């Protein structure tokens, strides 16, 4: 609940959103991740997706938004979209199937804009319907396609090179229009009318870009920011305790993970037994509490690595409810069983070489550094000497790209199903030998034909049963082979204050991830009510 002064405190019905992204340029191109519009998140106040999907519950079908109906057929090779009637762009022109089709054409024709690399082929508008045809099954891409935002054809037709345009005056179907944009602050205001559904209560949203986390947290603490997505160490002391009644944060997991990767081509890390043993000793609680401040990247100890609860529907029945247990003796016996020896408290591999590992991390990434420090301690318990080496980010990126590392913390892709995440971990089609750069996933150089096959099956299967089977296979491989060791789930959340506005998503009402830059941000804004 809010206080009675809240409404008085916010007579203009302003919502202050902050992000620690540094000064922005006036760039409102909705297709580019580099634009201020995307960075700050006001993209979704202006442009709207065809379908509103909730990442927290990936299995839910999604809310019809600009499309009222979407029908897949021909094993996900064909999609028929029914476009909503009565939607108007903010310049007053009606949105039609033409606009939707035009948007897809833009993506198809401009490789640079097609960030998701969806292989669009046939795009045919007809009446209030648009039909998309594909050469391959788009099962795994369905979310990406349905979430596509719609731009007005009459505006974009006149743009010479859509990838190089700053779109000074963005026009979309969303409830807000851009009022002003300066490097520090961008302001959107509610449309005077003509929005296709009930207008939001928030009249104006101010997006402020702070230069670093400290400034952003400061702003949250002193109320200058009411909604943000930023890492807060010791959040209780620093943030929520400052106003426990109003200051909240919520960071639900999404279907992507962070974890410890090995170059699985390098001995002894090519030995699944060793990896399994390590999996048994990594203290995920410590990582969660100390590295991730007890909330940031949610703890992930599901044996399959699939974050819960978002991934619950995908976990094979035999693995449901199983979590990794800290088990140092178990790890030790597993190792001795596999021919490893302990001399004193040092581990050596079957060939007698001591097992050591160099863990690398970009020097400024404090949570990963902390995670690795913890892992280093954990590994010492089974006699593995680890060193944490901080290097600069670019060099680290390069070492990831070429496989020039022994162990490191890295993330995976995110998707509507665990497919994307598993694909990143063990897709043999993406394998490149150590030393060769240009890799796109599979940083661990993991090669397992069964896994590759299972991934292909999952993407192209004709029926759900085959998919479920493939998913189970992948999970089994993950457990048996442990190509990487998940430590945390990726999140999509945020900090918010209920002082002026209520109606935010939370555990009780998880209708959207509370992150101001995701599509769902619009859904959240539409849910907000002034605190009374």
């Amino acid at each position: 609940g809010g206080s009675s002064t809240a409404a008085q405190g916010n007579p203009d019905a302003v919502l202050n959103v902050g992000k620690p992204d540094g000064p922005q340029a006036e760039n409102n191109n909705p297709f580019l991740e580099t634009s201020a519009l995307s960075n700050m998140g006001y993209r979704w106040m202006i442009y709207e997706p065809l379908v509103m999907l909730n990442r927290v519950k990936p299995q839910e079908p999604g809310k019809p938004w600009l499309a009222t109906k979407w029908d897949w057929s021909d094993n996900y090779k064909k999609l028929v979209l029914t476009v909503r009637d009565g939607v108007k762009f903010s310049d007053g022109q009606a949105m039609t199937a033409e606009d939707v089709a035009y948007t897809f054409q833009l993506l198809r024709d401009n490789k640079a804009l097609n960030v998701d690399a969806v292989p669009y082929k046939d795009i045919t508008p007809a009446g209030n319907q648009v039909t998309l045809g594909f050469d391959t099954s788009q099962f795994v891409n369905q979310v990406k396609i349905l979430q596509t935002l719609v731009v007005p054809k009459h505006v974009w037709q006149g743009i010479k090179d859509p990838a190089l345009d700053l779109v000074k005056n963005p026009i979309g179907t969303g409830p807000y229009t851009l009022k002003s944009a300066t490097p520090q602050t961008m302001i959107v205001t509610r449309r005077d009318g003509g929005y296709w559904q009930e207008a939001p209560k928030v009249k104006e949203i101010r997006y402020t870009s702070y230069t670093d986390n400290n400034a952003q947290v400061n702003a949250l603490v002193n109320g200058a920011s009411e909604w943000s997505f930023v890492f807060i160490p010791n959040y209780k002391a620093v943030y929520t305790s400052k106003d426990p009644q109003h200051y909240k944060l919520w960071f639900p997991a999404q279907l992507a993970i962070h974890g410890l990767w090995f170059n699985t081509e390098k001995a002894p890390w090519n030995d699944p037994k060793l990896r399994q043993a390590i999996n048994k000793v990594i203290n995920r609680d410590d990582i969660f509490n100390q590295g991730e401040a007890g909330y940031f990247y949610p703890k992930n100890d599901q044996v399959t690595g699939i974050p819960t609860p978002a991934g619950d529907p995908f976990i094979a029945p035999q693995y449901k409810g199983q979590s990794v247990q800290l088990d140092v003796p178990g790890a030790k016996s597993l190792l001795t069983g596999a021919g490893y020896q302990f001399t004193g408290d040092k581990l050596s591999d079957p060939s007698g070489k001591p097992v050591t590992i160099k863990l690398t991390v970009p020097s400024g990434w404090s949570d990963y550094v902390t995670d690795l420090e913890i892992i280093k301690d954990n590994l010492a318990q089974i006699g593995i000497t680890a060193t944490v080496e901080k290097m600069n980010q670019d060099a680290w990126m390069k070492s990831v790209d070429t496989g020039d590392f022994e162990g490191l913390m890295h993330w995976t892709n995110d998707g509507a199903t665990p497919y994307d995440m598993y694909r990143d971990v063990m897709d043999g089609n993406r394998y490149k030998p150590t030393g060769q750069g240009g890799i796109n996933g599979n940083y661990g150089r993991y090669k397992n034909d069964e896994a590759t096959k299972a991934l292909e099956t999952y993407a192209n299967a004709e029926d759900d049963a085959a998919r479920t089977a493939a998913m189970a296979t992948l999970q089994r491989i993950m457990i048996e082979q442990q190509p990487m060791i998940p430590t945390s789930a990726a999140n999509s959340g945020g900090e918010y204050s209920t002082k002026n506005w209520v109606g935010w998503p939370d555990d009780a009402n998880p209708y959207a991830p509370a992150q101001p830059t995701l599509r769902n941000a619009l859904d959240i804004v539409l849910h907000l009510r002034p605190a009374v």
Partner: protein
Amino acid sequence: MRYLLQRLVFYVFTAWAAVTINFFIPRMIPGDPVQSLIAKNQGMISADAIQSLYVLFGLDKNESLISQYFDYWGQLFRGDLGISFTFFPTPVSDLLTDSLPWTIILVGITTVIGFAIGTGLGVVAGWKRGSWVDGLLPVTTFLSSIPYFWLGLIALTLLAGPGSFFPSSGGYDPGTVPGWDPAFIGSAIQHSLLPALTILISSMGSWILGMRNMMVTVASEDYVTVAHAKGLPERRVMVGYAARNALLPSVSGFALALGFIVGGTLLVEIVFSYPGVGYQLFQAVGSQDYPLMQGIFLIITLSVLAANLLADVAYLALDPRTRKEG
């Protein structure tokens, strides 16, 4: 005139060399802007986007470094600084017009004030050796030895906070829209106070010290003794004779400081979330944004050179001995 012409040739050469170095050095960094962008977003941009980003940034064409170098010069001569990667496709020049004024106003004014106050105190300290102003020296030395980001953070913690007059971040109030209206200017000034104070405190010491030592040196010159012997009023001797001459070496230091305004304030801008060039450069380096880096380097180089030229001219104006004539 001939002298200035000579300097000009020198400046042109230096500018060329600096621009060339500025072009090649950023390209020594391993990796590329796309990877940096992906790393920055840690999974928020999917790995599938790599290809589209390469296409977007135009990095898919394999051009040799040398031909890029010549293209770059071509661009420069057209007055085109290129397009930033981080803020693709915003032209670098737009970014600079956004950020430069902030830096120039904040740091420029504080540099000038710092120089003026520091030099003034230095004059008095040097003239009245042993007086209380002289006693300030150890204090200012200590203050100027404190890393100023640290000073800034402490100042933020102690002075800024909920309800404080000093805002804790930004260049202006988020509610105001930049423009020449009193509300905005007032808020901009209010926001600049703390960073300005930090810069002032940590930069004044060296001015005081330099000027004091020069004053002590100059005070023992014969012409100062003559000025005393002439029975001139003390102020006239101090200002017109001693300080006027002692100032000369500080002029080039000051000019250089003016030149480094653009580049030297990275940390202040980070600490105070101030929307200036320093932070932009830091960001550009972090994300391998060559065009932006080069653009900022170019500005820094040019402003240092311009400041040097200014120093030359100022010297010419201040020190008649450098005006060589037959």
